[in-house]
């Protein structure tokens, strides 16, 4: 027997592995552009949060029907991976249905189950395609959903349908070959769903059937390898990053804005509550570019599924303002990728930073200023992304470094400084309300 197919297979596997490794490394670098932040606390709570949100997809069930459909695709994906393991081992060893002899009866059941999921995946993907392209759900068509993000979403659905089709038709051809007693095709019988496809192949000659079966097999496995590479370039990275992303998400009440300890020090000195020391002042207050954000915020950006639930719930966006929390995440990711590409071209960090920045070139002041800090985006996100934390860090840059806050806010700042209230009332009038207590 010729070893050529096996050699070819291992070669394909290695090439795919190489590309995935390179790309993963790239994304790692992009995330590590962010500032360090250690998260070691509340481990069991984090684990629980991750299990519920990433594994159990709890928030997807905010819309139960979509939740179920998404779950089918996800479960199908997980379960079919077991089948991929067999395919890979078959490919390497040159065997066919390697697991069949060991599993006996159970093997058919297993394949039947895979087929059930394959059919489920096809049906849901078709519904999702219709929802996106025919029903045109607004959140899939808003401003930031330009060509690539829209194409990305559709491609993956078509891709999954094709993969599942080849899986099912491969089984159908296989069953016929078994019934004809062709050598190499292990007797495992026909399967629940693919048996209905058999009439399509029944009149084909054995040699063409073998050809089709092999073709489907190769297409299926190469497709999956291609898919694995593809997702690292796509919003579908969330199938992996949803896990760390939910694990590292903040467990604090959503209203709490993290304290800037570097500011506390200076304020305490100013109020005479602490002594000045000579530790260096921070490089920058707030965030102008991706390097001013922390790595969790950048991981957030790579985990974004571009689903737009955040934007669909954003009061600013709903009322026609430019702000879209999804765009904030997409911009952050795009800028981080650009940053690493330029680093790889040998540019110095300072040079990259001086040419462009996240705030200014990607995200505008108009967007940042429209946020009401209402947390609707944070609440809506199925994978615990926090667009608001990036918005707030940029606001800090605008206020404390650029000194570019809207005039009305400067007035508020002034009043706070002189009258300890956002309005210009004399502080001595603060208790005047008491006159109303005994007035009916």
């Amino acid at each position, binding site marked *: 027997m010729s070893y050529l197919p096996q050699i070819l297979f291992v070669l394909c596997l290695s090439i795919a592995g190489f590309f995935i490794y390179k790309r993963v490394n790239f994304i790692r670098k992009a995330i590590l552009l962010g500032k360090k932040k250690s998260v070691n606390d509340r481990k069991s709570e984090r684990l629980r949060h991750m299990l519920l949100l990433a594994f159990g997809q709890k928030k997807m069930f905010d819309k139960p029907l979509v939740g179920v459909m998404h779950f089918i695709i996800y479960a199908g994906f997980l379960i079919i991976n077991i089948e991929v393991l067999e395919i890979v081992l078959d490919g390497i060893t040159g065997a066919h249905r390697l697991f069949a002899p060991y599993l006996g009866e159970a093997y058919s059941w297993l394949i039947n189950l895979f087929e059930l999921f394959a059919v489920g995946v096809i049906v849901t993907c078709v519904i999702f395609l219709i929802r996106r392209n025919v029903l045109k759900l607004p959140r899939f068509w808003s401003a930031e959903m330009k060509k690539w993000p829209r194409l990305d979403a559709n491609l993956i659905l078509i891709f999954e349908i094709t993969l599942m089709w080849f899986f099912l038709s491969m089984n159908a051809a296989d069953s016929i070959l078994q019934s004809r007693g062709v050598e190499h095709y292990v007797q495992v019988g026909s399967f629940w769903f693919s048996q209905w496809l058999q009439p399509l192949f029944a009149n084909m000659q054995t040699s063409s059937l073998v050809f089709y079966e092999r073709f489907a097999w190769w297409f299926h496995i190469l497709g999956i390898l291609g898919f694995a590479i593809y997702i690292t370039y796509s919003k579908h990275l969330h199938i992996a990053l949803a896990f760390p992303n939910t694990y590292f998400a903040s467990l604090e009440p959503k209203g709490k804005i993290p304290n800037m300890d570097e500011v506390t020090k200076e*304020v305490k000195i100013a109020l005479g509550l602490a002594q000045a020391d000579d530790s260096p002042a921070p490089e920058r207050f707030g965030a102008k570019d991706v390097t001013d954000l922390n790595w969790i915020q950048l991981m957030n950006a790579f985990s974004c599924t571009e689903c737009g639930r955040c934007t669909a719930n954003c*009061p600013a966006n709903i009322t026609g*303002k*430019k702000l879209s929390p999804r765009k904030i995440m997409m911009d952050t990711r795009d800028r981080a990728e650009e940053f690493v590409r330029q680093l790889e071209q040998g540019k110095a960090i300072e040079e990259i930073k001086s040419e462009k920045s996240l705030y200014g070139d990607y995200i505008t002041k108009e967007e940042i200023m429209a946020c009401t800090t209402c947390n609707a985006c944070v609440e809506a996100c199925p994978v615990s992304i926090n667009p608001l934390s990036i918005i707030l860090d940029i606001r800090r840059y605008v206020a404390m470094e650029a000194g570019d806050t809207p005039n*009305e806010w400067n007035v508020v700042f002034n009043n706070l400084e002189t009258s*300890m209230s956002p309005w210009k009332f004399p*502080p001595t009038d603060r208790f005047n309300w008491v006159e109303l*207590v005994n007035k009916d």
Partner: protein
Amino acid sequence: MSEPIKVPTLAELQAQGESPEIVFWVGCAGSFDERYKKVTATLCKILHKVGIKFAVLGTEENCTGDPARRAGNEFLFQMQAISNIETLNMYGVKKIVTACPHCFNTLKNEYPDLGGNYEVIHHTQLLQELIDSGKLRIKEGGPFKGKRLTYHDSCYLGRANDVYEAPRQVIESLDADLVEMKRSRRFGLCCGAGGAQMFKEPEEGKKDINIERIEEALETQPEAVVANCPFCLVMLTDGVKNKEKEDSIKVYDLAELVWMSQE
């Protein structure tokens, strides 16, 4: 008329060698906004009625710093926060109630990092406790019995701190007919004032946020809209005026409903 209500300040109590059960944090809107000053007074009446020994800071209170922090001015926020904490700690304050969800959030969640650790509750939580424990009794067949009321979740009580049920239970205890808006609880829509938006014109868009929200409230055909936040109260009231409905639909703070319904 019964004896006038005395609202003591912490300074006065300390001078008498006493300390209050709870400090009422009034907030800037509660101190200066004409409409919310009435809510402040109402809450004092309720506290007095149930015999809770409370005190206020009076002129010693400063803005919590919430708008400064959310507008990005961390220095100014911490200036306000640290001097407030100095005052509160000097009086040995343990428990605080406030009628402003922004103050509530800042005092409860943000002051601990700067050395201010207090038990902080929002007035809607206190009202629920008082009604549940029977300390505050609601009249049978009060003015809101059977009335259609819709409740607006403020972002800083709701999503920011996950308090959704206490205010609803209070409304139910008034025998009112609580009708929910399409977007409520976790998905409640902001009134448009948070994040220091209260103090500036909105960015360009199709509509103001409070109009979007009031339209949704009007869909429930309410007899009154209930809020729990001074800024929501302003925004919603403006929305109702914009729709020229101010004669038929009132916007109340929850404390006002309770005061009108108590025995």
